[in-house]
């Protein structure tokens, strides 16, 4: 993985990178101009330190192609760890 020179210093960062990969897939599919928010459901038993994960995700979402998309971590049951939603700006004007 290109980010951080291929060195993944921690579990949460590798998960955050995987979230970003999924988000990019959604943004491409939806032909988004910009990603404005990312929601991830995190279960209490997901093996994720939430504040650490938030920091990693916010750091990655600050840079292109995301440009400061909002990070929204939603508490969930069990070992759930899911990309819940992606909020995009598709650049089209709506009436």
């Amino acid at each position, binding site marked *: 993985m290109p980010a951080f020179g291929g060195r*993944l210093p921690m*579990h949460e960062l590798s998960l955050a990178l995987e979230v970003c990969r999924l988000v990019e897939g959604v943004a491409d599919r939806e032909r988004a101009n910009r990603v404005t928010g990312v929601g991830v459901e995190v279960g209490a038993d997901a*093996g994720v330190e939430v504040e650490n994960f938030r920091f990693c995700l916010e750091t990655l979402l600050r840079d292109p192609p995301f440009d400061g998309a909002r990070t929204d971590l939603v508490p969930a049951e069990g070992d759930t760890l899911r990309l*819940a939603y992606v*909020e995009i700006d598709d*650049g089209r004007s709506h009436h």
Partner: protein
Amino acid sequence: MAVRTIEVRERVMARNDELAEEVRRRLQRAGVPAFNLVSSPGSGKTLLLERTLERLGREIAMAVITGDVQTQNDADRLARHTDRLVQAVVTHGACHLDASQISRALEAIDLHATQLLFVENVGNLVCPANWDLGETAKIVVFSVTEGEDKPLKYPAMFRNAGYAVLNKIDLLPHVSFDLDLAMANALAINPALRFFKTSARTGAGLEEWIEFLRSSARPPAIASPSLIPSSSPVPPW
């Protein structure tokens, strides 16, 4: 500008789990069981594997994929005990192995000449619990110099493991570790857990462990692995 919210609900681990399923199918096609050894650092995974290779290496063709954060020390130790392939995966800081690393490591292993595969995971009881590597079972190694409450502190790992090796039992007279309490704690998390009590250092209790591996390994005399029907009976692991 139009801001839209796209519902996704896609599991973050989905890609890893797909790769793990591929690994699992590859191993099943070759009939090779794979045990993923997980534990906290220093519980004795590498010594247990060294003793296993020493005792069983001439009888059963075993391959090992060993994960290490920064060195190849474990792979070097294991390679002294076997002329079989020991594949080192240096994770460069990552705290667990993932299925893509196992998939790549398998490229260098001739599965048709292998009867049993070990994966020695990075010493860590948290993250490896959530990463499916396509293994047959996770085996958690838990030493008597740790706390009896370890299963309660790391429930995901004990829940996801099929077997627990209680190691360093030679040290029991010197520590206040309550073996029965530790086992009760583990069974409270996972009632199906099967235990081995060993000292890799002295060899105590290794017979049962070795016998388990012997009965789990793929039988040696299979004429052509491609001829095994997919409906062949499920092996005993």
